């Protein structure tokens, strides 16, 4: 599990170059796994996700001269590049299979008796979350993935998606409401 890094922390200091070598390396170390996780969740293809992860960083480096701090942090730029590349890949393949794909298994519950119950509970919860996420429409699922993997603010999401911030809020609200409804325990479960 990657440690949470806020977008503010990932942005290079003001006044310097838009993205120098040190800032790029820091961004790479902070975001590589997150970009990869976002892409593999979106594409459900490990090799494609790896290719596009490499592409995204390479494109970010090449376009570092055009980075505009007023339009978003380098993290937001990176995820925008990754998203565009992923959508291009989806467009090329012309297929969006179900969310259950060959992406490998999620993190295994910790071993041991002491943590057994807790690990099992966590794995079970994640199965429910995965099923709920899979039931989301593709656009809303992508928004949730971008929000949680990219840790972008709504303004950055709006810039990345090319929609208004209020629209982002509305769509995110709808997606998470749907996710909540899917994850809510049924009456049978509550009785049990």
């Amino acid at each position: 599990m990657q440690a949470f890094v806020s977008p503010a922390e990932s942005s290079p200091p003001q006044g310097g170059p838009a993205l120098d070598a040190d800032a790029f390396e820091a961004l790479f170390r902070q975001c590589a796994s997150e970009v990869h996780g976002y892409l593999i969740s979106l594409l459900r293809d490990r090799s494609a996700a790896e290719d596009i992860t490499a592409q995204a960083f390479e494109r970010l480096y090449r376009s570092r001269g055009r980075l505009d701090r007023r339009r978003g942090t380098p993290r937001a730029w990176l995820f925008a590049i990754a998203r565009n590349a992923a959508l291009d890949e989806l467009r090329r393949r012309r297929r969006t299979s179900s969310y259950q794909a060959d992406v490998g298994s999620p993190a295994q519950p910790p071993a041991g008796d002491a943590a057994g119950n807790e690990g099992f509970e966590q794995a079970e919860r994640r199965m429910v979350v995965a099923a709920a996420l899979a039931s989301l429409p593709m656009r809303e699922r992508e928004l949730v993935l971008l929000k949680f993997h990219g840790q972008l603010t709504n303004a950055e999401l709006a810039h990345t998606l090319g929609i208004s911030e209020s629209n982002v809020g509305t769509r995110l609200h709808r997606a998470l409401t749907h996710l909540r409804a899917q994850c809510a325990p049924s009456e049978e479960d509550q009785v049990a």
Partner: protein
Amino acid sequence: MRIIPFPSEQPLPGEDAWIAELEAALSGEQQGPSADAWRELREDVRSLAPPMDPAFQARLERELLRREVVPSRQARPALARRALARRALADRLRTVARRLILRPRLTPSSLAGHLHTVVHRPLAHRRLAILAGALAAAVAFAAALVIATPRESRAPAQLSAPAGRVPRAPQAQASPSIAPTPRASKAGPAQAAASGAASPPSSTGAASAPGRVQQLAASMTLGTSASEVQAVSDEVAQLTVREGGYVQSSNVRVQQQGTSEGTLSLRLPSAKLSAALAAIGRLAPVRAENQSLEDITGAYEAAHRQLADALAVRSALLRALAAATTEGQIDSLRERLAQARSAISRAQASVNAVSQKASTAEVEVSVLGNTHGASTGLTLHTGLHDAGRVLLVTLIVLLIACAVLVPLALVIAAVLSGRSAWRRYQRERALGAP
């Protein structure tokens, strides 16, 4: 099944408050069960993705960081380069395949052309853009030259620049015709012989009305330096003689200080007026020129009628004299014949005067010295004038360039914008595809 903890068991609050709560929870600013639940949900979602392959991570790190990613194409990370190349090739082959399917009548040459187009598309686009820009610039430059050149050639006459060229009036005014009336030309050999030099010139011009007799006049003002007024006036006089005319009057005043001036009244053959004016205009810069034309056909015909009448009277008197038998009749007829000869002489003089007017043009030439526009050297005025011309031509070039390039830029911007919008639409379609 266990109960899944989820943020806020209560119904979700208003959208704005909900967004604020979510942002605060995810950024770690808010604490409490609800915020913890949001963060836990985020971690659950993130944990659904399998972790990055350590081998890939190490290779990517090695490619991107340890080998120093540089912007040049040759130094791209090998991994990204391979991925890009593989996808680009797949795209291009797919495009070729579509064209093959859509175009069954494909010849080997067209196939080679398609392949070339697909393989070299980025380079072709760059070359096309450069070619379009160069073409637009060339068109603008050529158009500016086309427009500027005629202005330059007309400028000396219009702006009184010292180029020494004379604006030529239309041929209708420059060489008017003097054509004898049919009646005059049918006067017969006897009358022609009697009239002597009264026969008008036969030169014809483009605007000559058949049978009309016209009198021409012109005036011209030349500008030159004060020291050259005398020389220019002399040259005008010499030129007049060479053209078959003469100087009727001349008045040249040269002053050491003040304005020097020369005025010449010339008589030039009407047929040579145009050429003579052009030659005079080459002697010094023309400050002003005027040409006028007067139709004297009525006076010309009246003089000829008087002459014919007088000749007829004389013939009748001669016949009467031959038939006279008495001394008194003979004396009376001889007296009347003397009167008829006097009338013939007056009519002949009148005809000659009118013919002289028709065949000779009156030209007034003024030579002005010490005029600022006449100087041929570099002065402040000429410098400012030339600078103004340069600025004017530059402005025209820029205007034409804008007229060409602005629409071109708008078209390119529209195409790029449309392409971007289409790509965005296609990407969104990829999200919405089943």
